[in-house]
């Protein structure tokens, strides 16, 4: 029999309903795996008691024939989602021992569907990073290693790095992530799993620690396209508590995935083949992806998204500007860390608290954002960036208006890099998100599917981008890619 931790969500749901195993057994198998691989540092706060309690409640509902879509499925919750009564850190010291007195809408939706929380997953501080190196709770280790340097520890990507590592290492059947500029898709690619950033507005942002409000979106991370579709169905839905949550119906995403790609037009943006930068290896994997979709009956056409090269620069104004405003709330007054000495005034307290509580990357982005929004610079930076953003969104709209159904690109310009590989220049680190940021700026759904291993034995994903609220076509194409790629490789960590 397949190990319980190796099941997909769909298989586990069937097994639970058939009574092959109980939700408590399934949770215990994952809790044991979490202990065995605690060195990956995928979880900041494991919640074993809560997991067993919820799993027992799931078993009772299954027995009564009242199972929800995620009933008894053990998952990791990115530690950016507020969980009632369970510490929520956002990977930062400034939240201290913050214990939310409320539950985020997305996590609430998942619990209502029967999901079981194993713990809160590690992440880059305030979701700002592409490596998990900025977490105040230590780096996450990617369960994958290079064949030519198996001892060298690699990053899982970020910011949802703990979620991705947990799913890849079989420490959860699925996980929630959030994506602002690539934070679901890039770690999914680095860890060889499937991750979807839904359309902006598909999932409620209520109760998620805010980074950049016009970009942040929650999404599922799992080991198959079908699992991602199941999880998305449970997470999504209109929420009056988030004014940007879209009042649109949630379709049965799983019903769409086996429809195939016959007759679909797949756009291949020529600007994603920069003259310098994209390695021949990644380009070859991308070409294989095109062939797979063509063999499955789709048509590929070259398209142009002319403003692609400006996306990253626009993003690094918009996101820090919104972050500087959102993170103003961490002032040592209402929650979290407070640093104050005798005789200090209110300003001293603010300045000391924020200096001690925020890490270097978060401070850098707050300062950039503050500068971009400050008197005399707003038009030159923020307004300019929002105009470029309009052009980027229009590029995509034009492509879809011209008959393209879905766009295929690499997810990342390279596979996972080493933990000790010093990236001293912030801009070099930002380039990790060059293929994912344009989609975020346009608010479109983007899915990363693992397609191949690189020469060094590391997973590499391809990204599928769709029209607003057309996750179904994205998932359909993703399933076709998944079938053709037959990606079954596992991290070496799990062998023997």
């Amino acid at each position: 029999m397949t190990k319980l931790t190796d099941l997909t969500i769909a298989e586990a749901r069937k097994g639970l309903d058939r009574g092959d195993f109980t939700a408590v057994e399934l949770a215990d198998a994952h809790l044991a795996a979490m202990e065995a691989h605690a060195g990956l540092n995928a979880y900041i706060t494991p919640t074993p008691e809560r997991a067993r309690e919820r799993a027992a409640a799931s078993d009772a509902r299954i027995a009564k024939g009242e199972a929800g879509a995620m009933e008894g499925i053990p998952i990791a919750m990115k530690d950016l989602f507020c969980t009632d009564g369970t510490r929520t850190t956002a990977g930062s010291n400034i939240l201290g021992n913050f214990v939310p007195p409320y539950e985020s809408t997305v996590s609430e939706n998942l619990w209502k569907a029967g999901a079981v929380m194993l713990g809160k997953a590690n992440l880059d501080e305030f979701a700002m990073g592409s490596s998990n190196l900025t977490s105040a709770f230590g780096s996450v280790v990617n369960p994958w290693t290079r064949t030519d340097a198996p001892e060298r520890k690699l990053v899982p990507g970020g910011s949802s790095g703990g979620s991705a590592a947990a799913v890849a290492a079989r420490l959860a059947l699925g996980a929630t992530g959030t994506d602002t500029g690539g934070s679901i898709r890039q770690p999914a690619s680095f860890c060889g799993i499937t991750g979807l950033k839904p359309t902006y507005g598909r999932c409620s942002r209520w109760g998620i620690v805010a980074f950049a409000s016009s970009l942040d979106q929650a999404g599922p991370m799992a080991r198959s396209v079908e699992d991602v579709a199941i999880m998305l169905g449970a997470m999504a839905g209109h929420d009056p508590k988030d004014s940007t949550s879209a009042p649109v119906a949630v379709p049965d995403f799983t019903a769409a995935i086996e429809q195939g790609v016959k007759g679909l037009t797949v756009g291949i943006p020529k600007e994603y083949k920069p003259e310098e930068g994209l390695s021949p290896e990644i380009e070859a994997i991308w070409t294989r992806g095109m062939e797979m979709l063509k063999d499955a009956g789709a048509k590929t056409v070259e398209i142009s998204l002319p403003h692609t090269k400006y996306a990253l620069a626009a993003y690094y104004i918009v996101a820090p500007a919104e972050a500087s405003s959102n993170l103003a709330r961490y002032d040592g007054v209402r929650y979290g860390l407070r640093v104050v000495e005798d005789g200090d005034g209110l300003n001293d307290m603010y300045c000391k608290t924020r200096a001690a509580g925020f890490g270097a990357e978060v401070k850098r982005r707050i300062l950039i954002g503050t500068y971009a929004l400050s008197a005399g610079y707003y038009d030159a930076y923020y307004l300019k960036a929002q105009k470029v953003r309009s052009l980027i969104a229009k590029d995509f709209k034009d492509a879809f208006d011209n008959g393209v159904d879905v766009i295929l690109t690499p997810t990342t310009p390279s596979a996972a890099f080493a933990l000790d590989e010093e990236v001293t220049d912030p801009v070099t680190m930002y380039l990790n998100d060059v293929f994912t940021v344009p989609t975020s700026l346009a608010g479109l759904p983007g899915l990363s599917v693992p397609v191949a291993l690189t020469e060094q034995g590391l997973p590499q994903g391809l990204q599928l981008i769709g029209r607003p609220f057309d996750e179904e076509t994205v998932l359909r194409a993703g399933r076709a890619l998944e079938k053709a790629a037959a990606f079954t490789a596992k991290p070496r960590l799990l062998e023997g």
Partner: protein
Amino acid sequence: MSLDKETVRKIAFLARIDVPDDQLDPLASELSGILDWIEQLREVDTSEVQPMTSVAEMTLPWRDDAVTDGGYPERVTANAPDSQDGFYLVPKVVE
């Protein structure tokens, strides 16, 4: 766009983040590096372009101006570093 030490000091105060004197110069050069890279946006002609104000093409919903939640100050202040009788306590503001 190159930032000097004094500008960084000013931004840091606007953002209410203490930055020690000896870190102002390195930070200025780091932030200048990022801003230099962002300068490329100037190449884009945006004279006829409206800035994006809404990601999804939807009108923001209206709701009744009514109190729908609240009445539990002890829960609201439960995470406060310092509080008393349902109020937050802070250092003296007015001399």
